[in-house]
């Protein structure tokens, strides 16, 4: 199960007219093996959702892929090739969105929306067969009385139920990889926990890889195998989830971890990272995090560090002064 399900290489996404364009995602490379979960972490606007949309070929003008490529289960795919991507989306590569209230079409019954995912990729499947698979898919994600849910309209279902249906749709064709853009953020904590548990089990059982985009490190801790931290369109730290959570190397990752409330440590005040992430287009020379970094030195402001191996070699960090002591700053 260690074969690579999805690999993204040097992906750069930009927006705006040629010549005056703004870079939103800058040279991002990622890979996730089958059956594993990669968490893509970062603040709003760090480019994590853009990365996923770009990989799906779902960017809308004026946002576009400037360079980079991807491979899916070992085969090269071109996210800018609309015809090719149309066949791949939903079959080999699926996506789940943040707000389950908005993801299902409000005027279409659930059965039609689930069956459609099957029939658009294989028109030879009969209606009865598509329905049977739909029912099966709903059972897989833990939906009781699937028959009833299939006959309902989205507004008749709860948020958690809708998100399960969305996940069922994403998984129905057994894709190699699922890109999930903060799919539990809009749900209450109990439902969130249940869904995370189901998703983890499904990935393990079916060998589907998952890229889980989130800013919630509590979710990451219980879910991810590997983590990639993004800041201002760049990956700043990457490696096994346990290592990064226990011993972050990049000051930004440290900052993110410090801003998560912990139930077992008594700190008077929750720490936050001072300042705001740079607006795309206003990025200056040097490390992009330097203006907000309390460890920054003069060298940080002159040249941007490369994403270099660190620690035992399984980790990558983009910092000239990493927190090698585990970051007890």
């Amino acid at each position, binding site marked *: 199960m260690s074969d690579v399900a999805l690999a993204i290489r040097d992906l750069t996404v930009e927006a705006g007219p040629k010549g005056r364009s703004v870079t939103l995602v800058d040279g991002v490379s990622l890979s996730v093996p089958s059956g594993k979960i990669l968490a893509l972490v970062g603040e709003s606007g760090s480019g994590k959702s853009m990365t996923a949309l770009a990989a*799906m070929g*779902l960017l809308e003008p004026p946002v576009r892929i400037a360079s980079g490529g991807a491979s899916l289960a070992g085969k090269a795919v071109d996210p800018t090739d609309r015809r090719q991507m*149309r*066949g*791949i*989306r*939903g*079959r080999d590569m*699926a*996506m789940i*969105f*943040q*707000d389950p209230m*908005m*993801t*299902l*079409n*409000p*005027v*279409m*019954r659930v059965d039609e929306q689930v069956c*459609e*995912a099957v029939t*658009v*990729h294989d028109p030879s499947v009969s209606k009865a067969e598509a329905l049977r698979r739909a029912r099966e898919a709903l059972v897989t994600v833990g939906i009781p009385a699937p028959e009833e849910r299939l006959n309902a*309209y989205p*507004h008749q279902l709860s948020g958690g139920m809708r998100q399960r249906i*969305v996940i069922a*749709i*994403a998984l129905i064709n057994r894709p190699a990889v699922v890109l999930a853009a903060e799919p539990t953020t809009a749900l209450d904590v109990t439902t969130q926990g249940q869904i995370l548990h189901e998703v983890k089990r499904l990935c393990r059982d079916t060998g589907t890889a998952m890229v889980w985009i989130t800013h919630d490190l509590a979710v990451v801790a219980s879910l991810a195998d590997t983590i990639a931290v993004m800041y201002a369109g760049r990956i700043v730290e990457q490696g096994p989830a346990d290592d990064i959570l226990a011993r972050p190397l990049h000051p930004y990752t440290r900052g993110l971890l410090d801003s998560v409330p912990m139930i077992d440590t008594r700190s008077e005040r929750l720490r936050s990272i001072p300042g705001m992430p740079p607006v795309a287009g206003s990025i200056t020379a040097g490390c992009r995090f330097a203006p907000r970094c309390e460890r920054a030195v003069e060298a940080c402001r002159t040249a941007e560090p490369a994403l270099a191996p660190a620690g035992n070699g399984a980790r990558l960090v983009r910092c000239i002064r990493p927190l090698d002591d585990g970051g007890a700053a």
Partner: protein
Amino acid sequence: MTLFILRRLLQGAQLMIVMSIIVFIGVYLIGNPVDILIHPAATQQQKAEIIARLGLDRPLWEQYGQFVMGALRGDLGTSYVYRVPAFGLILKALPATMELALSAMVIAIVVGIPLGLWAGYRPHSIPAQAITAFSILGFSLPTFWVGLMLIVLFSVDLGLAPSGGRGATVEVFGIPLSILTLDGLRHLMLPAISLALFKIGLVIRLTRASMQETLRQDFVRFARAKGVPEHRVVVSHVFRNILLPIVTVVGMEFGSLIAFAVVTETVFSWPGMGKLIIDSISVLDRPVIVAYLMFTAFLFVLINLLVDVAYSVLDPRVRLAGR
């Protein structure tokens, strides 16, 4: 649903009562029909006789009372000019207006929706901008002027279509229709297009705006993420959502189309209700004016009710209160 319809009908009845009072007072204020109806050479005694016969010597509230009593029996008064029941006159003119209004509506939908979808799907393309510009023209050109220009161009200069009248008609279930004869169709063409132009502009703008708004929704993105082909995304995901505002607006606009027909019918001398009401106003034929206005108000109530019911059928989220 039944309860909802009953409640709406009750509201409609209230509206009709208020409408009748306003109409009655309004018509009373326009002027005294006696001055127009009675021959200038008539003696004072003849005048008084006619005034008494028409009941115009009574106070306004008494005239209104008589009108209401009559209306409850289905009698909206007798035309001063034609000496026949006013409501009968309107019913006779109704098919012509309906035919014109429906034709205009169909043209507006068939032309407006596809153009609007196109303009909304690729809003920055040149054709989309041309469509939008056209819709602004359709919106802002006055109907009577468009009618006159159509006559000048197609009837006078090109001689392709007659400038007025209904042409040959065929009776279908006792209703005369122009659309089924070639001659009638040629007569219908220009007034229908003239009447439709404003609505085409409206439908284009509405469809375009709804399309742009719906395309940004997450469920459209999710449909694409499922691998749904683009034409299907537009037709079955987007269009079904857009249909709701379109049905509402187009339905509501149908009432105004009947009302707007007044101008077009006058320009093209189309023998419908609009022409009847204009002719009646010029001779102050009070019962016909009152009957027309009451009937138009009734049509509006009815159309709005039908739109609400259609809306609940199309949108599963709408459940009419009291179901």
